[in-house]
């Protein structure tokens, strides 16, 4: 009887100290992270299409293309599981992806020199898809950051930090704003 009481009391204390909410918030981070990965994946899925379209124009600059392909394979090799979202890991992921972003925007700028390609309906569709994907990536990142902030704030407050410590709820990393990303990239079409 006494043991039952202790268990019951313990359960009540735990749930009132937010253990269950921590689990819920942790799960919503996992979900938000999955969405971030999906959007990045969507971008890298578009690249073979883009490369094929651009390659059709025989004299297209080879280096720009190879840079994109290399950056893509590098970016897809960095995968992070949802329970390893430490600040370091996120920074690594972000670095690999931003290299690809850079290579892609260089490619889009160099397309300027090929009016036929730029005017083709296939390319303009791809471009709309790419832009849309970049938008989806930033929205997913914003939402991820918001869920992480909610979680981090929650587990670091007293007295929940004690429970969080006991059960190894660690603070999670954020996506940092990329350097120069406060100005929208100036790509003149």
């Amino acid at each position: 009887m006494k043991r039952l009481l202790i268990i019951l009391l313990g359960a009540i204390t735990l749930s009132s100290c937010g253990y269950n909410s921590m689990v819920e918030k942790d799960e919503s981070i996992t979900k938000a992270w999955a969405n971030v990965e999906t959007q990045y994946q969507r971008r890298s899925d578009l690249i073979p299409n883009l490369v094929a379209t651009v390659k059709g124009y025989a004299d297209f600059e080879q280096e720009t293309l190879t840079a994109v392909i290399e950056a893509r394979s590098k970016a897809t090799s960095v995968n992070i599981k949802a329970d390893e979202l430490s600040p370091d890991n996120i920074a690594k992921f972000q670095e690999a992806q931003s290299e690809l972003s850079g290579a892609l925007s260089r490619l889009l700028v160099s397309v300027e020199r090929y009016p036929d390609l730029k005017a083709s309906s296939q390319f303009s569709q791809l471009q709309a898809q790419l832009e849309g994907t970049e938008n989806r990536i930033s929205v997913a990142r914003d939402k991820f950051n918001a869920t992480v902030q909610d979680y981090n704030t929650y587990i670091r407050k007293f007295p929940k930090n004690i429970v969080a410590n006991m059960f190894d709820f660690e603070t999670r990393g954020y996506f940092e704003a990329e350097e120069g990303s406060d100005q929208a990239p100036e790509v003149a079409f």
Partner: protein
Amino acid sequence: MRFPLESRKRGIKAWFGLSLIAICIGVLAPAQLSADNCYPKKPQGLVADQAGLLTDREEALLNQKLVQFNQKTSNQILIVTILELCEGDAAMTAYAIGEKWGVGQGKLDNGIVVLVKPKTSDSRGQAFIATGYGLEGAIPDATAKVIVENEMIPRFRGENFYAGLDQATTVLMELAAGEYSHKDYQKKDGKGGFLSLLPILFFIFIWFMIRYSRTRSYARNNHLGFWAAWALLNSASRSHRGSFGNFSSGSGGFGGFGGGSFGGGGAGGSW
């Protein structure tokens, strides 16, 4: 002697607490306000013309068209004109507005935000169509881009904002209506039907209980029967009823935003 000292101490403590609260609120409030200040005020309908690009009549026409469409199909298309892109670029500003106001129905995410920032002497004009999660299939990014480039921007160049918005919303309505009709909405919404009524039933119950006990004591005090007291009290409070009427006056209009969500779909252009 001890008593006044104690109470003075308590007074000091209270003052200290109050001023602390005042400081905290005073410091926090401006920060929160300035972040929200940039956005237009949430409109009563589906047109928020902050930049003043439309005449009153044009605004009313667009609003009527969109509100009717909302009533018919549950899709919500919101037009926002703005002088400053609060999030730095048109896409993020449109998503932020859609997300903040909850454009579209919560379960379908079938909202669209059409954002226009007019050209000024030192910045280009921007137009963006942001689609909610649920409409990304019906209006793919490439389609949104075509709408912006073919329907909106050529007319916006000639400052003909009404015609551009009217055309664009007509196309959007055709596309969106194919995806979600009101039936889908009611079907999806039906699940939570009774549960969502529970709080209302609860309040009605409480209101009834209060009325009941009041009538009982009124009846006892005035030596009346229960129903006689009920009738007397009712006639006495009839004068307060007027305010209730306001509630239904909006029934022909816009019922409010439904809490839809945006994931980054859509496309835009500039001129």
